[in-house]
């Protein structure tokens, strides 16, 4: 089944990332950004008949109906997407499929993260209650990885970076250049968390090593924020307030959750997800004008450039060194600054790659608009190179 050109992103909205949102609710943030995206599409809430939200701890179950009620919507399609960092891209693919299947015509896709200072020092998850007790997280990872300190994502990307270094080789300077280019882009995006704070390769390499070999400036900064998009039928998108970004291709691939059990640490599921997206869109890699690649770490970008087919396997470092990844360079990558420099507001960080790609296609990227932007490639990456969702957006159907 092909979704090529059947649907489009007609509206986008994004809350500027901030370090903290004292006292705010995720529900309220989701609703605000959702309403803004609906208005951006030139639609009335009454015209929205589908809703996709992330699952969020604040509303432990039945999140979609909660958000529908809060927004006063009346929908024929309501669901949660739970694909880690690939959630935003996955929402768009599912919205397109639902619309194409006739379940609904206009879907608002919502992500948001609140963040409070007082909660940042505690453990990520509920502490173990020991042998005799019972805890909430009884996943294989809580049982077989967390006891060894394999907690969070930093360690996993460090394992990948070291294994990649062993198999193919990449210099610290090449990895650092990814962060430097994204910071340059963020300095052209007043909404970015690190706007006005340029960095150099030396800055990256002299920042502390957190998990060998990754330095602090190669790692995303968690923050608060929200992002939403409205996906609608191409028929309705034609009448939207703004130029739509047509969804030309979508691909998804998942084989594992934990990096421990990944078939390979250096050849990722991105190959399959990107191949599907390109095949559906019927375009070539060289047709892409903007790459919007999930960049939780510098090494993530190197692997994605290779597995999405922009660089040969093992040549990701050389690709970064041989191209200008800045928004005004020959290979514009994450013009908004990527999550490395725009910020990572939870799952809205992954969604920022969707909103930025749409913004570029719509010609609304102001001081960082890539010229002649006809095709954008988006990659969403969940967990530690686990869930992968690729999208291709285009100016024309």
């Amino acid at each position: 089944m092909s979704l090529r050109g059947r649907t489009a992103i007609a509206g986008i909205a994004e809350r500027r990332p901030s370090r903290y949102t004292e006292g705010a609710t995720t529900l309220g943030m989701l609703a605000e950004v959702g309403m803004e995206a609906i208005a951006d599409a030139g639609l009335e809430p009454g015209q929205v008949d589908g809703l996709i939200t992330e699952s969020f701890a604040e509303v432990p179950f039945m999140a979609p109906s909660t958000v529908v009620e809060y927004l006063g919507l009346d929908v024929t399609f309501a669901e949660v997407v739970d694909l880690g960092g690939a959630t935003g891209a996955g929402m768009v693919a599912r919205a397109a499929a639902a619309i194409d299947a006739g379940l609904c015509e206009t879907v608002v896709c919502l992500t948001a993260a609140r963040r409070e200072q007082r909660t940042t020092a505690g453990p990520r998850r509920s502490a173990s209650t020991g042998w005799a007790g019972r805890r909430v997280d009884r996943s294989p990872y809580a049982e077989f990885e967390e006891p060894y300190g394999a907690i969070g994502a930093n360690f996993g990307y460090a394992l990948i970076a070291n294994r990649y270094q062993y198999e193919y080789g990449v210099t610290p300077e090449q990895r650092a250049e990814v962060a430097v280019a994204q910071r340059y882009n963020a300095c052209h995006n007043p909404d970015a968390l690190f706007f006005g704070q340029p960095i150099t390769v030396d800055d990256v390499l002299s920042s502390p090593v957190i998990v060998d070999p990754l330095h602090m400036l190669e790692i995303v900064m968690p923050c608060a924020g929200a992002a939403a998009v409205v996906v609608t039928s191409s028929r309705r998108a034609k009448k939207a307030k703004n130029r739509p970004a047509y969804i030309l291709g979508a691909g998804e691939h998942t084989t594992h959750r934990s990096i421990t059990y990944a078939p390979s640490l250096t050849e990722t599921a991105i190959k399959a997800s990107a191949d599907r997206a390109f095949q559906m869109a019927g375009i070539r890699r060289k047709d892409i004008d903007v790459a919007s690649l999930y960049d939780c770490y510098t090494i993530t970008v190197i692997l994605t450039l290779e597995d999405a087919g922009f660089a040969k396997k093992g040549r990701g470092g050389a690709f970064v060194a041989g191209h200008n990844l800045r928004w005004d360079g020959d290979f514009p990558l994450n013009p908004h600054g990527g999550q490395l420099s725009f910020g990572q507001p939870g799952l809205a960080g992954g969604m920022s790659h969707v909103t930025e790609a749409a913004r570029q296609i719509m010609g609304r990227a102001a001081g960082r608009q890539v010229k002649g932007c006809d095709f954008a490639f988006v990659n969403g990456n969940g967990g530690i190179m686990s869930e992968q969702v690729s999208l291709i957006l285009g100016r024309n159907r």
Partner: protein
Amino acid sequence: MSDQTAVPAYNKPLPEPNTTSLPFWEGAREHRLRIQRSKKTGRHVFYPRNVSPFGAGDELDWVDASGRGIVYAFTVARRPTAPQWAQDVPYVIAIVALEEGPHLTTNIVGCPPEEVTIGMPVVAVFEDVTPEVTLVKFGPASPANGASSEQTP
């Protein structure tokens, strides 16, 4: 009081065995590394499962692994990955490829972090972290300990 010299209580996350994984953790307490093997394919699998990931109509049996493997990937945590590890930096988190095939995530202990390399032969080291729980870590294989997977306390 007689227990004034007791070490501080172990404060790190502990595994919570279930009916599926119990043989693994009971084995660990006996300083045995037990994993499952597919009846149909002979392939081994880790972590413990109720069903075989190698296809329908398969069954999984428990077997003793050799305890030998190699470091497939590793990192040295220079900052703690969780607050409970604050006193442990630097420490090594690694994926070990067992001789039988499966990969598992663990710690490499018994040598300085800078001596750990990818491909390094390692053997299981059993750490009795509480009276109930033994964690399976790995240490460098050498003529001294290569023949036994037991670590002398």
